[in-house]
């Protein structure tokens, strides 16, 4: 029983984790992309469509990543080149993504999907309990953990990561030192788009292998909240994602047990938990002030 619960928590946490680590890099570069939900849902529909057409889950995942990047490039062009308002443009990206995915996905409603296979890590997967939970997952779960470690290493152990953080903390100084603020931010935005696309692919190719309109159901927004929860530190994203994964599967298991609470109240728990967590984190001024990228959401127009 406990093993089964843990398995569902992992699958619920993975899309949150991947989308959040992508957005974390974007925000570390000083850009606030509120369009995660839109990029994610586009990844979900394109991933499903390509996997369905070609019969290959891998091609589906690649297509989903490309779709997320294409959406983020659109966002990047508007907020970086045309200095459009970041909040409004992110919203536009979400509205467009929800509409476009609905239109593309109409042909795939009710079509049986394709589940990307689990990878069994030799030897380790034979360990009782730990094996099935941690070493018999699909590739995207492993990629998620690799992304966290990779991003943490990149941001805090490499020169390029230091430059990216400096762009997010003080774009004026970074520009004066000769770094191309806009180019670096554009790269970060593209990375965020790729992660959101991958998270979307996980939704439609692993979590529930089918296409349902609006199937991300606010997970892109929860991922945004997770970045705040993690106070922009990669490893804390894992904690947050698993916490939220646990809250969101509570509904399923509570129904299975037969708790007398109306399902709508349990379904609203992840959203209420998000609000609660945001309040707790933001009430702690010291924590947020130390780690919030100082130029987050501020437009940059270089003069030369």
């Amino acid at each position, binding site marked *: 029983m406990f093993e089964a619960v843990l398995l569902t928590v992992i699958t619920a946490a993975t899309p949150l984790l991947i989308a959040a680590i992508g957005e974390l890099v974007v925000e570390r570069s000083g850009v606030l992309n509120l369009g995660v939900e839109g990029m994610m849902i586009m990844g979900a529909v394109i991933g499903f469509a390509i996997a369905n057409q070609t019969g290959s889950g891998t091609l589906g995942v690649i297509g989903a990543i490309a779709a997320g990047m294409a959406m983020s490039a659109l966002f990047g062009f508007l907020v970086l080149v045309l200095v459009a*308002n970041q909040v409004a443009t992110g919203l536009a990206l979400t509205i467009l993504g929800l*509409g476009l995915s609905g*239109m593309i996905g109409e042909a795939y409603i009710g079509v049986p999907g394709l589940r990307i296979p689990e990878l069994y890590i030799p030897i380790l997967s034979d360990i009782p309990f730990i094996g099935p939970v941690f070493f018999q997952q699909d590739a995207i779960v492993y990629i998620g953990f690799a992304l966290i470690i990779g991003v943490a290493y990149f941001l805090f152990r490499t020169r390029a990561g230091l430059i990216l953080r400096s762009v997010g903390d003080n774009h004026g100084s970074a520009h004066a030192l000769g770094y191309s603020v806009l180019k670096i931010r554009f790269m970060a935005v593209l990375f965020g788009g790729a992660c959101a696309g991958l998270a979307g692919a996980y939704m439609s190719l692993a979590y529930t292998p089918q296409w349902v309109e609006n199937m991300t159901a606010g997970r892109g927004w929860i991922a945004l909240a997770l970045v705040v929860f993690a106070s922009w530190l990669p490893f804390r994203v894992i904690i947050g994602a698993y916490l939220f994964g646990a809250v969101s599967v509570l509904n399923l298991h509570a129904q299975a047990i037969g708790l007398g609470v109306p399902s709508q109240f349990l379904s609203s728990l992840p959203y209420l938990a998000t609000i609660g967590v*945001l309040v707790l984190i*933001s009430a702690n001024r010291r924590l*947020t002030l130390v780690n919030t990228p100082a130029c987050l959401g501020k437009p940059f*127009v*270089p003069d030369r």
Partner: protein
Amino acid sequence: MRIELVKRKEHSELMSLMSPLIAVGLTALSAAIIFAISGVNPALGLYKFFIEPLTEQWSLEATIEKATPLILIGCGLAVCYLSNNWNIGAEGQFVVGAMFGSILPVMFPSFENSLTLPLMLISGVIGGALWAMIPALLKTRFNTNEILTSLMLVYVAGLLLDYLVRGPWRDPDGFNFPESRIFSDAATLPDVFGGMMSLATPITIIIALVLALVLAKTIKGFEIRVMGESPRAGSFAGFSAKRLTIFSFALAGGLAGLAGTMVVSGSLNQLLPSISPGYGFTAIIVAFLGRLNPIGIIIAGFVLALSYIGGEGVQSGLGVSNKIASVIQGLLLFYVLACDTLILYRIRMVSRRAANPAGEVSHV
């Protein structure tokens, strides 16, 4: 080649008027391309989408009906956005307002007199404003990001409504359908102008005009604009950012709640699990397309209402998915935001090696 932005010396008045028009033009062009890809004659598609709804009595009435909540919500959101308060949860405030407005006709159906409607509308305003107070107070008290909290409450509001119409508020004579009892005549907004529109539309237009006056001519309007553009300057003038956050959220929530109650009372006549085709989100586009100005928002409300009716039109007439409506709405917001750049900057295409003319500060 690259794109270079040259800062204008002052806001371009011409571009302030032109940018929404250019955005609508570009959206129509993109819509034509989407129609062509879907295998439909683009000219026919555009006609069915943008023009035909205006040629018939019933579709014109439907457009007015859909424009009304969009305008009302958009006006409230404009005040939020002008003062730098990012309320994106109007959809939830709309739903909670509708629930509050429905307390009287659902729980006390025998209370039928001339007070019924006014009390319903007031409860709707209160409900929407209370729901909007949650993100506002969390922002002023704990410095919590209002974008995320207001949005999360949209989902909670939707689930709450779902619970009510499937549970305690389900119509006792309704054969177990998830819907509330039908409102009595006393709880129904009357039609005006020979049935052309419900009373909701004139109420909405009056509120928009009053708000336009308040924003343009009163000290409160000045406060809203100053605090949005320069909170520091505003604080020297003695304006409080926190009070304005509360005020703008309460206003936006109240208007969204009023819109919700008027939709339920004037069009649906009962509560259903879903009472809005995304009015609260589309109103964000309305607010921006209307340049955060109530008069502009009235026009923008009709443009976006057209997209709902046009979407149905191309689905039934041409077999194109009605989802094209939300694609066009999203594109429109993108173009509006992109074109707004023209107000502050001139755009120039330059080759890599071209030197900047002296005396001009240029920006990428």
